[in-house]
């Protein structure tokens, strides 16, 4: 069997499975990114707020979810969450395992982790906004929501785009760990193919290349966004 047949789309080729797995990885990461955006915004806001309690909660969140190995968090969300759902099912008389769907659990777990990273990105971006511009917003009587919506959010987004791109990369790879929930993502499918055919190098290289394809697509998106966001700024060094 030639290499092309092995990784192609024919009856003996793994192309189909790998393609589906790539899409799965993309979906998990995209959903996780959105979950992380919501959580990250809340946590960043807590960490920047004046309340000491909110600040400690925010710090605890970012410390724990960045500090603990991702695999354990996925375990906890998946099996912990499943126990909750199963218990709830039992309360309504359902016998047996209900569990969270693998996709939901995986995306939620990666999203929670991504939220911790995004919170730091947003916090850094907020601190990069020139103080004077915030004062100017206060001075014309913008209330907090308005200030957030009109002045802070657009600028935070501008400063945060490279950071979000970085988090996207991380999540893309964290999503490889959700295979413990039984989800056939790109990493696991490459490993299955490698284990089943004993062609480890071939499938690891193909898997790696598919990750790079995802990366280059997302790089394009983030670079475009960055260029758009920075058109009001004087050119600096190291501009893409």
């Amino acid at each position, binding site marked *: 069997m030639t290499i092309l047949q092995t990784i192609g789309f024919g009856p003996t080729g793994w192309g*189909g499975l790998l393609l589906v797995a790539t899409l799965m990885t993309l979906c998990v990461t995209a959903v996780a990114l959105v979950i992380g955006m919501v959580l990250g915004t809340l946590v960043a806001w807590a960490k920047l707020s004046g309340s000491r309690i909110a600040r400690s909660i925010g710090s605890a969140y970012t410390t724990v979810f960045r500090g603990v190995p991702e695999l354990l968090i996925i375990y906890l969300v998946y099996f912990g969450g499943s126990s909750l759902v199963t218990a709830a099912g039992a309360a309504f008389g359902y016998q047996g395992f209900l569990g969270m769907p693998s996709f939901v659990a995986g995306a939620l777990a990666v999203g929670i982790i991504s939220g911790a990273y995004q919170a730091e990105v947003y916090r850094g971006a907020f601190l990069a906004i020139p103080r004077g511009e915030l004062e100017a917003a206060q001075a014309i009587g913008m209330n907090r929501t308005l200030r957030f919506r009109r002045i802070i959010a657009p600028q935070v987004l501008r400063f945060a785009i490279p950071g979000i791109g970085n988090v996207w990369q991380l999540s893309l790879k964290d999503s490889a760990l959700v295979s413990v929930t*039984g989800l056939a993502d790109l990493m696991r499918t490459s490993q*299955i193919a490698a*284990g089943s055919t*004993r062609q480890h190098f071939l499938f690891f290289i193909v898997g790696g290349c598919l990750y790079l394809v995802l990366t280059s697509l997302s790089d394009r998106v983030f670079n475009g966004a960055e260029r758009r966001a920075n058109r009001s700024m004087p050119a600096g060094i190291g501009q893409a």
Partner: protein
Amino acid sequence: APVAAAKDWKTVTITLEGAYAPWNLTNPDGTLGGFEPELAKYLCDHMKVECTLVASDWDGMIPALTAGKYDVIMDALSITEERKKIIDFTIPYAHTHAAFATAKDSPLANAAGTGTVIKLDPGATGKEIDALKEAFAGKTIGIQAATVYSKFIYDNFGSIATVREYKTGAERDLDLESGRIDLVFDDAVYLISAFEKANGTLGFTGPEIGGTIFGSGEGLGLRQADTDLRDMFNKAIQSALDDGTIKTLSMKWFKTDVTP
């Protein structure tokens, strides 16, 4: 999990890794194949239950079993006392020998006893092993971590050779080819299939080692609460042993007989 004896088993979910050829593997179309899936089909037909085979990652298998996501693990699990504390096992459906392998052109090839089979009981050693110790002194031996073989290797060869533990057998075999290690020690059926991949450059050296020293073989893993399911499987396995099904499947997939 609260699932329990009261349940009458009509459907059973069996999980396996799907990447441990030839025990279990995945076909390019996504279906599962190999020794275990075919045996599972026989067992389920015999018990008249409907079985679903699900591939899952080894890392999540045990917690998923205890959480109730799957009912049975069928993934070449060796039965050991330590593991019995957490999950229950059926009677073994396979019992394989273990052996050393090395490159055919290595000076270590064809060590004393190559081609023979010896049987050892727990704790026992024999003069064959002493001969191997002499031959392998100062070499590097690769084993798969956390298998029943690691204790044997450490006990007998730990003091005279360098032992290197790998997460999977496949990676270890690559290192044998590249020359980072001199010998590997593993399940003989596994090694036979590895030899196929290596285009005949690898071969056994020294005797194949059987007997109860490596436990009582490979069984299905179940939750401890599901004794009824275990009994059902025990009966089915016994029947597969009795009617020669296991032997047939074994010859098909392993080219050797692994009947316990």
